[in-house]
């Protein structure tokens, strides 16, 4: 399951919109098709987004603003714009590598595998969440468990079990996908012991950048009460062409 796809926002694929418009196909959709539709809804060829991230802890909280660019599955770039102290920090994902440019020490750090499971910028997301290669469509086996209502919306409840070949740490992921807009509204992540580890809630469906998306995503680690991370999309533009050259380590240092 890619949590990161919500951060990076790929654009709709136009074909998909047309398919959606033609409607009434939902009735006999397979679980896999539902997940694919939801996945496509949140991604595009490219995207440019303005994001606010809130880290919430029992005794304090903290807010960061970022700009994010993505292109397909392979490229993404995140620039921190506030707070002032961290302004100019850039994360670049190029295929399977993650680079971190820190202006105050003028260093570009390639994140080693050992750091992948650590928290990303102090949030409840891990560095690994940034780079995950796994696709929620092709790397899982899907099974429709039924329908449930989440915040007054009819949802498909789908169990996703990773294929043995996929490098995924979860034993299973359960997602709830809105049967009308095909947006993922909730996901539960279970570890290898079958314990619930993280809950991700998506809400505030808004039309931004010409698409209906969930503009607020909250991540709750289950064993740390009172902790959560909220991602809010302030603005997003889909399918504006971005050159591959944009996603280079050299460009990281010039990003504004």
């Amino acid at each position, binding site marked *: 399951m890619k949590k990161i796809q919500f951060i990076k926002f790929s654009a709709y694929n136009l074909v998909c919109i047309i398919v959606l418009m033609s409607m009434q196909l939902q009735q006999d959709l397979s679980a896999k098709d539902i997940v694919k539709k939801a996945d496509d809804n949140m991604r595009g060829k490219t995207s440019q987004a303005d994001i606010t991230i809130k880290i919430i*802890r029992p005794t304090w909280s903290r807010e960061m603003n970022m700009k994010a660019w993505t292109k397909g599955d392979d490229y993404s770039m995140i620039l921190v714009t506030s707070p002032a102290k961290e302004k100019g920090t850039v994360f670049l994902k190029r295929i399977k590598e993650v680079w971190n440019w820190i202006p105050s*020490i003028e*260093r570009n750090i390639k994140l080693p595998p050992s750091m992948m499971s650590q928290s990303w910028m102090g949030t409840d997301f891990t560095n690994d969440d940034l780079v995950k290669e796994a696709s929620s469509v092709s790397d899982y086996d899907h099974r429709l468990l039924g329908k449930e209502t989440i915040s007054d919306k009819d949802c498909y409840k789908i169990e996703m079990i990773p294929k043995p070949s996929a490098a995924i740490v979860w034993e299973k992921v359960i997602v709830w996908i809105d049967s009308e807009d095909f947006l993922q509204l909730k996901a539960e992540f279970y570890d290898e012991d079958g314990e619930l580890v993280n809950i991700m809630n998506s809400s505030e469906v808004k039309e931004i950048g010409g698409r209906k998306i969930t503009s607020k995503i909250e991540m709750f680690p289950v064993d740390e009460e009172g902790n959560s991370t909220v991602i809010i999309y302030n603005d997003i533009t889909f399918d504006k062409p971005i050159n591959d050259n944009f996603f280079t380590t050299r460009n990281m240092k010039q990003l504004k």
Partner: protein
Amino acid sequence: MLLKLAWLNIWRNKRRTIITATSVFFAVLLAILFRSLTDGIYDNMIHNVVSYSSGYLQIHQKGYWEEQSIDNSFEEDGQLYQDLLNNPNVTQLMPRLQTFALASNTDKTKGVLILGIDPVKEKAVNNLHKKITDGQYIETINDSAVVLGEGLASQLKLKVNDTLVLLGQGYHASSAAAKFRVKGLIKLGAIELNNNVVYMPLQQSQYMHGAENRLTSVSVMLAKTTNLERLKQTLQESIEADTYEVMSWKEMMPEMDQFIEADSTAHYIIIGVLYFVISFGLFGTLLMMIFERQHELGILIAIGMKKYLLAIILLLESAMISLIGCFMGVIAGFLVIKWFTAYPIHFTGELKEIYEDYGIESIVYFSSHEKIFIIQTLVVLLLSILLAFYPGYKVIKLKPVEAINS
């Protein structure tokens, strides 16, 4: 009457009395010096170690010790300093911001301990500036440079005036990244510190971690370290108990406390042997006395002196001799210790180097706790009085006829 008799008796044979008193005198003197020396060495060792590390006592935000994270730091507070300094026993306070980070130079990276310190206060307590082997010591709390442990510098291949890159986690999950000029290298006795420590001016460290005006600990140095636990209690009561916790070095460095305890046990055995030797010396003189005076004692009993009264007189005599010896011993011990406190022994040559490698001053201090005098004197006094029961026993058993004829 008995007291007077005993007093006159002991001066009848001056030489015997003086020999016995002298053996007691040396016993007391040796015991006192031995204890004073070992205690002095321990005190010095503790002082040296705690002045670099934790301080005798340390104040933290409640809960810091369980989770030593910068998120458990507290706001620097003048009131807290005031409350602590109000205690006459508190001599120095050292505010610190202690964190861990990655340090890097070219392609070398290593985890380090960053000690954000007030260079002036630190200098006054542990003479940090004298341990600089290359470059200079940091001068003020916002000097934009750091001092590295020698071992760390050589691992990172850093020299004075090179740039050290630090990357860590700051307050409330902010990122802490900064570059600093290496101003000096420092040689510390504790190998662990020498290989890991980065001394950074406090304000720089606070800024780097996004923790303005925050501290992880205040180390407290004390004038007198006896009754550490009680002092800890008093301090805890004088500051806000809901916000702060006070810990002693024994809690923070149990391994050192245990080492001293184990080492002390060995010294107790040595001092036990010393007491044993002393006892036999005393016993010898008492035996001689009894033999010399057998004739006299026999006559006394024959003319009607009660045996138990005679035994008491002998006991009093021994007690008096012991008291004289102890008294002299205490005076001499006191003088010797006074002398060495004023002019401590400085090691020279190889021994000096060994000590300095461990970061301990190559000076032998004597401890002048009154406790030492009292306990050592009491032990010797008790021993001599116990031994004096033997002559008494002899007198009770004495057969006057045989004694007179001997």
